[in-house]
């Protein structure tokens, strides 16, 4: 399986990338780690006419902590997130993506912009209340996670924009849990649930729950959050809250999962993720 022929340019700066994208026309695409794009190109599902390679652009990799938030360069690879000692939920989820080889190449920016509802990181960004910085010919803007994921494989990043950084609130003191269900370790999530819990004196002060592969975009399970917030953080209230996990979801069925099964999985995994986040497992 061979990609269709395309033109190729290496950008030396973000501005250069924006210019090259513009010049490349509507089917020009950015190349980050390539591990979402190249597989689709080999199957000839994606047929870009030009790739603009970001690998030489300085300043797009690495993590910094400032003002209670992580700034993660868009070209930071999953394995760097996975092995970071303090990154919490994002690192944990990154460590479940595909396999080590893929995690050595795939980038957080590429994964988010790809907008695959079965990917691990989008729901985490959504639950954590993060954002991305996108730079285009019109300047730089911040896109909140809640506004980023528009539809199946569709985000609000414009075709001529480059995502340069991802911002994730550090949420110090919050507990987290990540429950990913797949048939094989290297598979995409059939369903995954991430949970973040802040507790004081045994009561749930605040809670965020993200759902992967339960609709054409990642989702927040707000009904679960509403049901648990302010409640004692125990097995009973977690179980009760998790019952709401499939509310307002629209999971796609496939050979290995019916929509009914995925809704059931969402509830089971939600309970497990919350239990883990609450430190009760």
């Amino acid at each position, binding site marked *: 399986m061979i990609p269709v022929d395309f033109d*190729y340019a*290496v950008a030396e700066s973000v501005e250069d990338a924006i210019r090259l994208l513009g010049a490349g026309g509507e089917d020009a695409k950015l190349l980050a780690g*390539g591990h979402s794009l190249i597989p689709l190109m080999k199957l000839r599902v994606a047929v870009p006419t030009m790739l603009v390679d970001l690998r030489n652009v300085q300043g797009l990799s690495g993590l910094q902590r400032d003002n209670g938030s992580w700034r993660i360069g868009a070209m930071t690879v999953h394995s760097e997130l996975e092995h970071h000692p303090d990154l919490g939920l994002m690192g944990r989820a990154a460590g479940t993506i*595909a*396999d*080590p080889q893929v995690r050595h190449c795939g980038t957080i920016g590429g994964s988010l912009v790809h907008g695959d509802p079965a990917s691990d990181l989008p729901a985490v960004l959504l639950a954590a209340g993060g954002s991305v910085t996108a730079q285009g010919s019109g300047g730089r803007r911040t896109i909140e996670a809640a506004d980023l994921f528009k539809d199946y494989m569709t985000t609000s990043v414009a075709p001529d924009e480059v995502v340069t950084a991802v911002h994730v609130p550090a949420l110090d003191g919050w507990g987290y849990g990540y429950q990913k269900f797949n048939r094989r370790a290297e598979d995409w999530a059939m369903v995954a649930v991430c949970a973040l819990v802040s507790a004081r004196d045994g009561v749930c002060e605040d809670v965020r729950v993200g759902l992967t592969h339960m609709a054409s975009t990642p989702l927040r399970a707000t009904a679960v959050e509403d049901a648990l917030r302010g409640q004692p953080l125990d097995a009973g209230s977690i179980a009760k809250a998790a019952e709401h996990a499939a509310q307002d979801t629209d999971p796609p069925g496939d050979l290995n999962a019916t929509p009914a099964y995925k809704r059931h999985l969402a509830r089971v995994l939600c309970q497990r993720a919350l239990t883990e986040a609450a430190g009760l497992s």
Partner: protein
Amino acid sequence: MSATVPVRVTVNGASHHLDVEPRRLLVHALREELGLTGTHVGCDTSSCGACTVHLDGRAVKSCTVLAVQCDGREVMTIEGLGSTDDLHPMQEAFWEHHGLQCGYCTPGMIMAGVDLLNRTPQPSESEIRHAIEGNLCRCTGYHNIVKAIQAASGQQTEATSQARDEVQA
């Protein structure tokens, strides 16, 4: 056809200058341009890992990397790891512990195993299994591959078979 792109890449310690189509996959550049046929292709979907090589010291699937992305970088393939006269300890361990049958997945499996030990010198069985979860083998059931990687890490393993135990006793 799009214009070819010059790529300067170091492979197994030797510098090469290639002119490739942008769509040329690294695995094909290695196999066809450089004659390094030890790196194999087993699938179309980055699933099987037979094409695993090291890029700047990290295991990658060379079927999912464009050759042009490797400009200025270093690649190591199974041929660079060791030769029949000078086997790498991981190669020795695969031989000693019968970690291969048809051999097709083996170069990728060995490169994945070496990558694991580079970062985790004493991995647990579970860590080994997850480190090679992106490398499929149809022959061995992975049992002896896991043992070979354990052995290469200097950890004790059971003998490869009871009979081997008996003979060695």
